[in-house]
Structures are given as structure tokens and as C-alpha cells.
């Protein structure tokens, strides 16, 4: 396959770039090795749109974060993604920590962040009655918000596809195709892809792609962070994003409401070598709980409905690397996108476009960087029962009776919503992909009741056997055989 722009990686960065570039008369193909977009750091993070005061003002990540933050209201409204600007509080327990808050405030103001304010204990407790009463000061940032990072990623990809982009799932880059110091394309498990430019947005794996070139050496250190998600009973326990005063290593273990009305705590930061190891451990999960309790002592272990982990990649420069490869013409690297990568993603995409303009001028490759006439900026709002008052359900049901069949009882998700998810521009083809789009199985029963129904709907809509329906793509099928088949083959001395 030949195209203008090949994007490697379907995380929030890759899809934001795809969507941004789909404004232009370009043929865009995005390659993602998993069965869905948002399968790496973009699905397992804190879901925070940071105000942007944390990173030193002279860093790229600070600049892009601050630039992107105000864009989220429109972006999320356009793409029908849940986003709430609820504000954040960094909590200090002593005078030493206050110093750090003052630095953050000053740093933030240098970057032009508005509304930063140091609050007294009383002001803090008024905002957050469940906060540890030993808290002394807090840095309030009204512009911080919460977003569903995987829904944003999916929506960006959907929008790119609607505007002519292609998203190739379960397509893993195995090698690059190079000729005379130029990248011509990539080899994948599903064939070769050729392009004028290749954008490396491979997230945790971006170092491996970048380092095909001898000149650019990207060095990652990996940190795993584990999270706990609470039942919706806890959704109002805090109303802002609460951070402890940060250490040198991380922003610390935060506690935040989610856009779906749950409460989330995490992440810790453990060094890891294994990019694929998303396991949780008892020790880490205890650490998360105990640390969160320092901020809100009344937190209980009860009512945790899920625990998960995500990995973030820190580049040795401790900043984002967004630049054309020095050693390999035509390759643009977007690497080391750790926090605040989600917050910065829209600005990363804009920056990429600038780089492309400049680079193309220099290289004069044959791509058309003029605006598309019929670019469609918005996605049609999805009909969702859970965010519609019940008395307005009648209209939704009248239009499509599939919406009157509730499949997920905990989160009130209907068959109509599931069918819609399976037929979106980037289709959901597995149980987890449906879950990320509709919330089936995210409630307190964790899919105990609805999973067989979702599986049945997937099999029917995809026109495949239920035996082929997977949890999350290749190798993760849920069912092995029809009943009696296993017994019969066992009796015949075969093993299935």
C-alpha cells in the first residue's frame, strides 16, 4: 500500500496527528499492532488534562501542555468525548512543601496559566471536605480537567477515518524499508506500506522505531504505575483532582473523580524493563491505597471494582522528542511522550504539522499540503442512555428499539449502543473494545452478567462464530468449543 503519511501507533498522539493531518489533502494510513486504538499508555493513565504548571517553563512538554489545555472544551465537544474542567489541587502538609507549591505557581504564571492560587487550610477544606485536615496549603488550578483518554483516542481515530484516513488494526511494524538514507515505508505482518513520510508515534515502542536510524539515539526508562478504580458510590468523595506535593520522580499518587462518576487513585511509579508487563502486584496496589489515604484518610478498601496498570516511557532528556530524524530522511519521531502527553496531544499534532510543512519545503516530496474542502470537524453525538435523563429515553427508543434492550445492567448500556460501537469508523471487534466505547462490563459486576450477551451481539454483527470472539484481539478468545465437542474429542483420545 502506498500513501502520503504513515503513522505508526494508535495512541492518543498518533490518532491526534492522524486527525489533524486529515484536514489536508493527504492520504493517511495509521498502523496499530493491537486490535484497537488506545491500547497502550492511552488507556491506562490518570485521564487528567493538566493545567501545565508542573514542568519547567523552558521544556517542550510544558509549552505544549499549556497550549493544548484550552483546546479541550471544543475538541471534546466536537468529538463527543466526556470532559470536565473540575480544577486541581496540589496539597502541601508543611512549609517545605509550600516552597514547591510556590515554585509551581511561579512557573505556571511564567507559562501564562491563569487563575493559579495558593489556598489556606480552610479554603482547601471548604473545597474538599474529605481532605486530610492536616493539610496546610494547596495550589489551586482551575483549568485542570478530567477526560476519558481512551474515548478521546477512539474519537480522534474515528474522525480521521471519516475524513478519509485509514486505520489498520492488528498491523505490527516488523522492519523499516530504507533506501539511500531515506525511509520508504515499513514492513508489517500484513504486508508492506510505502509513504512519503513516516511518523513514529509508537509510544512505548517509539525508541525501537527511531533507533533504526544510527544517528538518533532515543533512550527510554520505563515506569509502571498501578491504579485502583472505585464503585460509583464513591464518585462524589472528592470533586477536584487531588495531588500530593510532587517528588522529583513523579507527580505522586493522585485521587480524582472520573468523567464516568467513579473515583480513581494512583499511579505509583515502579521501574520496569518489560514494556509488555501490565500486571498488578499486591505490594504496589497497597502502596497506592496507603498513599491516597494520606490525602483522604476516610478512603476504604471496600468497593474497589477494578485495578490496572499502565507504563509510561521517560526519555533520558526528560522531555518530549518531537523532531525529524537526523539519520533517516522522511522519518519524524514523536517519542518520550510521558505525562503530560494526553494533555499536550492536540498541540503535539499541531506541532507535527508545522514540522511537516517545514520539512516538506526542504525535502520537496510530492505531497499536497492544502486544506481539504469537505473536512468534517465533528462526530455525530452518540446516543447514550447513561448520560441522558430517563424521561428523554423515549425519543431514543422511538427511533431505534434496540436502545430499549438493556444489556449491561450496572452501567445501563443498551443493545443499540453496542451495535453502534461495533459499526463505528474504527469498529469495536472484541469484548474490551466494546467496553471502552460503551462501558459494558465497567460496573460493579465487571461483566459477569453482560459478557455473554455482548459476545453474542459481537458474533452476530461481525458474522463470526462465538468461538472467534475475543477479549482483546488475537489469542484472547473466550470460548474453546461447543459443549460436548471437548468431551467427544477427549474420548477419541485427542486434545483440543
Amino acid at each position, binding site marked *: 500500500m502506498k500513501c502520503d503519511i504513515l503513522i505508526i501507533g494508535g495512541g492518543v498522539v498518533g490518532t491526534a496527528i492522524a486527525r489533524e493531518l486529515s484536514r489536508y489533502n493527504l492520504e493517511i494510513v495509521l498502523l496499530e499492532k493491537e486490535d484497537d486504538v488506545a491500547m497502550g499508555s492511552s488507556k491506562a493513565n490518570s485521564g487528567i488534562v493538566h493545567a501545565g504548571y508542573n514542568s519547567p517553563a523552558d521544556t517542550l512538554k510544558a509549552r505544549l501542555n499549556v497550549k493544548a489545555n484550552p483546546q479541550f472544551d471544543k475538541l471534546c465537544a466536537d468529538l463527543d468525548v466526556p470532559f470536565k474542567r473540575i480544577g486541581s489541587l496540589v496539597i502541601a502538609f508543611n512549609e517545605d512543601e509550600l516552597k514547591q507549591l510556590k515554585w509551581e505557581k511561579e512557573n505556571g504564571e511564567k507559562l501564562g496559566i491563569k487563575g493559579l492560587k495558593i489556598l489556606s487550610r480552610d479554603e482547601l477544606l471548604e473545597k474538599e471536605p474529605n481532605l486530610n485536615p492536616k493539610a496546610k496549603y494547596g495550589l489551586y488550578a482551575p483549568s485542570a480537567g478530567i477526560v476519558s483518554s481512551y474515548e478521546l483516542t477512539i474519537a480522534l481515530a474515528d474522525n480521521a477515518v471519516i475524513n478519509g484516513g485509514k486505520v489498520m488494526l492488528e498491523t505490527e511494524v516488523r522492519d523499516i524499508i530504507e533506501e539511500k538514507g531515506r525511509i520508504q515505508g515499513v514492513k508489517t505482518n500484513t504486508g508492506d506500506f510505502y509513504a512519503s513520510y513516516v511518523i513514529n508515534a509508537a509510544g512505548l515502542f517509539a525508541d525501537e522505531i527511531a533507533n533504526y536510524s544510527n544517528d538518533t539515539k532515543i533512550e527510554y526508562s520505563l515506569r509502571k504505575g498501578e491504579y485502583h478504580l472505585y464503585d460509583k458510590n464513591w464518585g462524589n468523595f472528592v470533586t477536584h483532582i487531588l495531588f500530593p506535593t510532587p517528588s522529583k520522580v513523579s507527580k505522586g499518587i493522585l485521587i480524582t473523580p472520573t468523567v464516568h462518576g467513579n473515583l480513581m487513585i494512583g499511579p505509583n511509579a515502579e521501574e520496569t524493563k518489560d514494556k*509488555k508487563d*501490565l*500486571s*498488578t*502486584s*499486591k505490594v504496589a*496496589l497497597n502502596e497506592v491505597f496507603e498513599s491516597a489515604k494520606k490525602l483522604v484518610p476516610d478512603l476504604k*478498601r471496600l468497593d*474497589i*471494582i*477494578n*485495578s*490496572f496498570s499502565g507504563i509510561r516511557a521517560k526519555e533520558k532528556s526528560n522531555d518530549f522528542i518531537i523532531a525529524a530524524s537526523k539519520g533517516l530522511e522522511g522519518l519524524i519521531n514523536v517519542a518520550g511522550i510521558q505525562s503530560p502527553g494526553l494533555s499536550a496531544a492536540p498541540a503535539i499534532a499541531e506541532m507535527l504539522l508545522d514540522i511537516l510543512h517545514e520539512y516538506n519545503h526542504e525535502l520537496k516530496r510530492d505531497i499536497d499540503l492544502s486544506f481539504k474542502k469537505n473536512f468534517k470537524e465533528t462526530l455525530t453525538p452518540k446516543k447514550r442512555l447513561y448520560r441522558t*435523563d*430517563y*424521561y428523554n*429515553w*423515549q425519543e431514543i*427508543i*422511538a427511533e431505534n*428499539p*434496540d436502545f*430499549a*434492550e*438493556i444489556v449491561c*445492567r*450496572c452501567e*445501563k448500556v443498551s443493545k443499540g449502543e453496542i451495535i453502534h460501537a461495533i459499526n463505528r469508523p474504527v469498529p469495536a471487534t472484541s469484548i474490551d473494545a466494546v467496553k471502552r466505547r460503551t462501558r459494558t462490563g465497567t460496573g*460493579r*459486576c*465487571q*461483566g*459477569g*452478567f453482560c*459478557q*455473554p450477551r455482548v459476545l*453474542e451481539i459481537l458474533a452476530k454483527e461481525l458474522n463470526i462464530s*462465538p468461538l472467534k470472539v*475475543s*477479549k*482483546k*484481539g*488475537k*489469542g*484472547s*478468545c*473466550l*470460548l*474453546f*468449543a*461447543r*459443549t*460436548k*465437542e*471437548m*468431551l*467427544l474429542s*477427549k*474420548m477419541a483420545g485427542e486434545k*483440543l
Partner: protein
Amino acid sequence: MKNYQLVIIGGGPAGLAAALKAKENGLKKILVLERDRYLGGILQQCIHNGFGLEYFKEELTGPEYASRFIEKIKTQDIEYKTETMVIGISNNENWSLDNKKTNKSNIENKDFKNIIAINREDGLLNIKANAVILAMGCRERTREAIRIPGTRPAGVFSAGTAQRYINIEGYMPGKDVIVLGSGDIGMIMARRMTLEGAEVKAVLEIMPYSSGLMRNKVQCLDDFDIPLKLSHTITEIKGKDRVESVIISEVDENLNPIDGADEDIECDTILFSVGLIPENELSRDLGVKIDKITNGPVVDEYRMTSIKGVFACGNVLHVHDLVDYVSTEAEIAVNAAEKYINKELKERENPIDLIPEKNVQYIVPQYIKYHDLNRKFVNLFFRVEKPLNNVNILILDQDNNLINSYKKDIVHPSEMLKIVLTKKDFKKVLDKIRISVIKEGSESFVSN
């Protein structure tokens, strides 16, 4: 808007028995709302036998037990709606589809409950009822709720979900299986999967004793040579796409894994049978008071909840060991609902609190509230905290006077115990009845 005398939420064993009894008692307008595609609830996937020994005095399978009720419901023309999900119940008469501004408030209406439900045929439904019976059953505790760490691959199921896949959908969800939890469903599924040709490597139980019924341990595990590893749990799940193995470990008396007592076992499937939780989301939204131990509504001897006209029975009230008791409990609730509708309930001056004491987890009902001259006895159901042999069950009044006592050879948390309070027993009781289960010969309970 439709009006009913009695609306029953849930068409499982509790709801079915309630509907039939209501009809038998002569209630005219009865409606059963069921969210699944069929009546019968979880019984329909329980294809093993052992149901009905108490209630029908014969041994039936789950679907057979359910069909005894369902057939009568159909022939007696009792109205029911399947694939119908109740969205909310309110005791505010203004709460309806037409009155969009009114929230569910606490303005109590004496005569009606408002129910909103949804299904394909009717769309959104607004139903008024004189009385409501909550019979929503329970759900399974999950792997996530007990925080078993590791990866999150395919192949981790709750035992009930696996049961549905096999017995309703007709598919096998595993080949090499580990079961965590020796609850009844866990043991029954260990047998079921073995019969289907899978290999069940072990059933693990964190407690030093099996948490299901003895007959299930014998018939499901021992008879099939499936090892039951007591004082064992899973400490880690491994595998990226599909489960590849589990680390299991022996635990000490505080249920903490013992260092070095672990083992990596290859398997592709893990079934969790680690407890059942009454499904009281609707009840909580309505404002029904919930017992922290049972996770079900606090009820009086007629199974009326803290909200007048709202009754609860079956596993939504407390998790039962035998379905037979569920049917009986539903009938108690219906008889009371009928009295409530006809305004025949007479409250005592003081309610009698039923207080679980030594080695008693909980008692249902939580209190006795009514004065009923025709009543000969009140049944109390309870569970012990830990297994004991040769015990005395002591029933004491508010002043620690012994009202009655029973001997029992063996008590076990998996088994629901029943005692009968007779008219005579009530004589000295003013406002409290306490129950203790203690080892024979240790009767140091008398305080004076």
C-alpha cells in the same frame, strides 16, 4: 400509566413464588418484571439436581423447579414482562415520565409506589403499585473485588458466568481449569466442566473449611477426584492474552500467603466462586435501609423494608443456601403485602430487635414489629460465623434470660439455620431477642 396492586421485581425463584402466592391469595392486579429473556432466573442455568427437597419433597433440577412455577403462572394468567429492566422505584407520586422536573424526593405517598421500567415492546413504562416486592436476586463477587493481582487476560470468569456459557449458550469457556472458592457454584462448576471433558486441576479455598454445602463437596469434588485445597488462594494471575498459569499459595491463620508455600500451576481458565452479593441498587436508590452484614434490606418479620409497602425476599434480602427457603420467604412477603394493601397490619407498641451475638453473623428478619394474634410462630433465619461441633443455640431476652435453647451436632457458615419462635417464647420479651451459638458446656453466658 398502569396501576397494579402488586408489582414484583424479578422473575427468579423469589419473584415466581411471590406471584403465585399473590394470585392464590386473591390479589387481582399482579405484574412480574424480569430483565432476562425468560422467567426462572438463575435456576434455568442450574441444570444439576438437588432443588425442591424441602418445598416439593422431591429432588428436581433447577429448570424443573422453575417450571413448576412458570407453568402455573402461564395457566393462571398472571401478567409478566420479560426483557424488562426496572430503572427506578420511587415513593413519590409525582415522579413520572410526564412530570420531568420532579426528582425522586422523599415525599412519601401512602398509597402508591411509582416504577419506571424499559423494554423493547413498550418503551419506557410508568407503573403504579400499591405494594412492591423486591426479588432481584444477587450477583457474584468478582476477581477485582477481592483484588487478586496479576495480568488481565481472557479466561478469568465468575463461576456463574461460566455456567451460563456452558448450560445456556452451549459453549465451553475453558480446558485446564482452576477454581477459586469452594462456594456451591464453584464446586458444581468444577464437576460440570469435568463432565464436559475439561480438566479441573484444583478447587482452592482460602478458609480452612469448605464454604459450600457438604453434599456438594462429596458429590462434586470427592466423587470426581478433584482436589480441594483448603487454606489456599491465588496470589497472581499470569498470561498476556489468555490465562497461562496461576500462582497459588497456602495461607496462614490470618489468611496471609505463607512465604515459600507457593506453586505455579499451568491453566487456561480460572473460575471465581468467592461469594454472592444481593443486588440492591434499586433498593438503595429508593432509600431502603440496608444491613451491612447481609447487604440486603433490613426487614421485619413480614419482610417489609424500611419503606412502607416495599417488601424483599430471596437472595436480594440475604443469600440463601437452598432455593426452597427462597420460595417460602416469598410467600411470607406476599401474605404481608396483602395485609398491607388491605390495611390489616397492626404494629406492636415496641418492636423487638433481633440481635446476633456470639458466633452469629446475622439474623433475618432484623426485628419483629407486628402484633398478630392468629400467628403461631415466627421463623428466624441466621448464619454462624465459623464452624463448630456440638453447640447450643441460645435464645435470650433483653435481660439475658434464657428463652429457649437448642442442641445441634454441627453448625457451618455455609448452612442457613432456622429457629422457630413460638407464642410462648415471646412472653418475657420486651424489646430484644439475642441469639448466640456456643460450644456445649461453655454456658457462661448468664450475666447475673
